[in-house]
């Protein structure tokens, strides 16, 4: 493949994902609404929200430091990089080797650290509360995430997502029990990391329960917009990682345009299904107390580790 087409694909994928990320959020919310017999705000709602926010004047607390103002951009940058790395549409993109799964997890950690610091910057009780809870979730989720990724990478003898996807995509269909465990674990991590029910409730501002919203309480206007956008990007990135690992079929090679169209179609379907499934999950499950979260994520960690052990015992 020529380097230019590679770059083109890279840019294309990144831009595309960044653009559809709010749509994804809107879609999930819409499905939730339907499932709850509400009419819902429509799937384009997030774009309108973002637009509105960008127009507003930013309001900043007096003692907000430069770190507070830089964070939204850093956040957005991290997430953009993330979706640039994950093979969403095509594999072997030029940026892909810049980071493997471990680096990806590191990337998310970086984003988390910055948003928590921003939460503590103003020094209100909510910000620190949110930061504390976020970090708690984070340190529980991160190892679980790594373990699921390790399971996949042990199967494909590689930690670079591209290789993983390629090996998993172009193999004859064999049942990997370990992957089943990993998948469940990954789902749980996804819920926790993206502040979804049952860990957090994106739709509430009830002090005692909120996590993510508490941290960004002080943000307004463009900063808030970037943070929200980054959040939706994060959700999309996670979903696409999940897709790449657990149902990678139909992804295109960089540079073949025919494959790209198929890939686009396939991706759309996958995302739609994933969104619906997420909405379903959120509808049927209830938010749990904050200190049930360790159990929840602990279970995820256990499952992931079990998956890896099973891989070592059965599949080698």
């Amino acid at each position, binding site marked *: 493949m020529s380097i230019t087409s590679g770059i083109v694909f890279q840019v294309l994928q990144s831009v595309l994902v960044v653009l559809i990320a709010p749509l994804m959020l809107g879609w999930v919310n819409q499905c939730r609404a339907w499932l709850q017999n509400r009419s819902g705000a429509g799937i384009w709602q997030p774009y309108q929200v973002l637009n509105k926010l960008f127009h507003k004047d930013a309001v900043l607390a007096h003692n907000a430091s430069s770190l507070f103002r830089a964070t939204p951009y850093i956040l957005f940058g991290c997430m953009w990089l993330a979706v640039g790395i994950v093979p969403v549409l095509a594999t072997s993109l030029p940026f892909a080797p810049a980071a493997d799964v471990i680096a990806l997890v590191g990337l998310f950690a970086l984003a988390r650290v910055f948003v928590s610091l921003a939460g503590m910057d103003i020094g209100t009780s909510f910000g620190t509360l949110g930061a504390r809870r976020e970090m708690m979730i984070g340190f529980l989720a991160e190892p679980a995430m790594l373990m699921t990724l390790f399971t996949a990478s042990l199967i494909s003898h590689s930690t670079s997502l591209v290789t993983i996807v390629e090996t998993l995509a172009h193999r004859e269909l064999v049942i990997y029990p370990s992957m089943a465990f990993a998948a469940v674990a990954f789902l749980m991590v996804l819920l926790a990391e993206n502040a979804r029910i049952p860990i957090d409730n994106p739709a509430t501002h009830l002090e005692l329960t909120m996590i993510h919203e508490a941290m960004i*309480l002080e943000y307004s206007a463009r900063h808030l917009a970037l943070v929200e956008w980054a959040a939706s990007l994060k959700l999309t990135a996670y979903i696409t990682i999940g897709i790449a690992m657990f149902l990678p079929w139909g992804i295109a090679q960089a540079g073949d345009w025919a494959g790209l169209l198929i890939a686009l179609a396939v991706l759309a379907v996958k995302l739609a299904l994933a969104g619906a499934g997420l909405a379903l999950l959120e509808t049927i499950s209830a938010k749990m107390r904050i200190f049930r979260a360790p159990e929840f994520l602990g279970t995820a960690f256990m499952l992931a580790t079990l998956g890896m052990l099973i891989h070592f015992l059965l599949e080698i």
Partner: protein
Amino acid sequence: MDSSILEPIEAAVTLSVIWIGLGVIGLAFMRAPRLITRAVFPAGALVSLALAATGLWAIGAPPSAAILPAGLPDLPFHVRLDALSGFFLLLLGGVSFGISLFAAGYFRDTGATALGLLSLQYHVFLASMAFVLIADDAYLFMVTWESMALSSYFLVTTEHHEEQNRKAGFIYLLVAHIGAIGILLCFGVLHGGHGDYTFDALRRAELSGFWPTIAFLLAFFGFGAKAGMLPLHVWLPEAHPAAPSPVSALMSGVMLKTAIYGMIRVIYDLIGGIRWEWGLTVLLFGAATSLFGVLFALMQHDLKRLLAYHSVENIGIILIGIGLSMVFIGSGHPVAGALGLIAGLYHTLNHAVFKGLLFLGAGAILKSTGLRNLNEMGGLIRYLPHTALYFLIGALAISALPPLNGFVSEWLTFQASLQAPLLESSVVRSLVPIVAAVLALSGALTGMCFVKVYGVAFLGQHRHELAEKPREASRWERAGMLWLALACFALGLLPVFMIGQLNNVSQALIKAGLPDEAMASGWLWLVPTSSAQASYSPLVFLLVIAAVFGLTFLVVRHVYHGRLRRSDPWDCGFPAQTSRMEDTADGFGQPIRQIFAPVFLIHREIPRADDPRPVFRQEIEDRHWNWLYSPIARLAEFLSGHFGKLQQGRISVYLLYSFLTLIALLIFLQ
């Protein structure tokens, strides 16, 4: 070799001696403190730089040895400088350069006498560390090893008027001494009763049966005690806070690493014939150490104590790397072994850099605010912007966040652990990834801990009314921190260069290195084994983020506007937002305390409802005191009590003793 050209070893020896000379000068001119801070310490820093250069030079050069005209009659001091020593010299020089610069500013307003002694002890400390690294016989090694402990002991007890500093010093020196005894025994075992005590002889000595294992265990114990490995870590969180901050930085950044050096030197080089069981031991101890260290760090509210516990954690991570390499080497996979070794060594260097930086930052805070207790800090970023920046870099680095250096070495460690499928025994094969999981967990916890530190210390509103506005660190101090911060970036963004050097080290040490493809893939891409397996390019990483940052900024400004209003933080309808509503350091650690409650020994004091002046107090204690140390102390007490009974003052009894002794001997004679 041609003696006319200078050899690395000669340079190293000369520089170390110069250090001692500087110390003596400092003592001699103790009446001129300005001279000491403005001349002696900077000069020492320059020596550090030269030493670092020597180290770098030695990594490439063939080993060079020399014999000094001193020591025991049959065993003069042997010194030798090979790639391994070179690498550690590089570490010592590089880190101590920054620290000495910092010290030049930090010790500005110390008392004259104290300053004179300080500079003597400080430079002797540096010199003895250098000599430990180049010692090539057991005697010189022990001498310098103990001088290192001794000089640092005196540095720890600089402020000896505080009871707890004295206690710290005592525990420190005691543990160091016991560890040294273990090392001495190890040399004795290695020696096996023939030849002399040069390392060459020890290398050549053929051990049979279980003797190598015994030697390994002794070395592991002895050096582990110095490195602060579980459960011998107790001295570390006591001693590091007690010492003046540059010294804490030196101890935690460099001295612990000499223990790692000793471990590698003895196990890989002197004992040789590594067995995978040993590796497993190191691996498990490492994992336990790292997890324990970070958990206790999260419970601390004394900044320097917290950093000390993080040193424990990082030592654990280093041990994990080394343990992995030993496991692989022991089961016949030298390449994977090399990867583990390189990961361990690289983390050794990284930890030295960022831990040094963090301790210096703590020192700057302590100097300008007089605070060590996190719960009293807050909002310092407004007063100490530079320190805040450097500290942030250090915090991100230690939290193993890309694209800084801490991440690279942990990434390499993960890569090493993912070589597990190579192993035969299924138990080990599945243990290794679990250790990796532990590593991941402690990495994440570290992130949490430093969010806590940074958030509580530098961000938010300040909790404690200070007498006067805190002053930003002086030029010298900032220079020291800047140097280390830059090192964090350099090692994080361009790891390939240093990895190449480390590859030489491992080539020299275990006759194996990374595969050529790994080395061939250019300066931008860090590739441990093959590009298909894994690759990482921190520079691209950073550039993309920066690019997006700039782009978004421009777009947002361009398409929309940059209007901004300042106002009070939103108070949720609750008017008085005081700093007492922020989380304290303890508050931030509370989830961990709850989740890992069984690990800690918690004494809590909760106020009753009708308490007029309610107070909440809680102490977190280290369980190891109870199950390990106090029993030993009690045993010694018990024994001495019984020996004491021998002597109850009656002369007749004393006579009886000698009488019975005589009779007994006479009977024995027959």
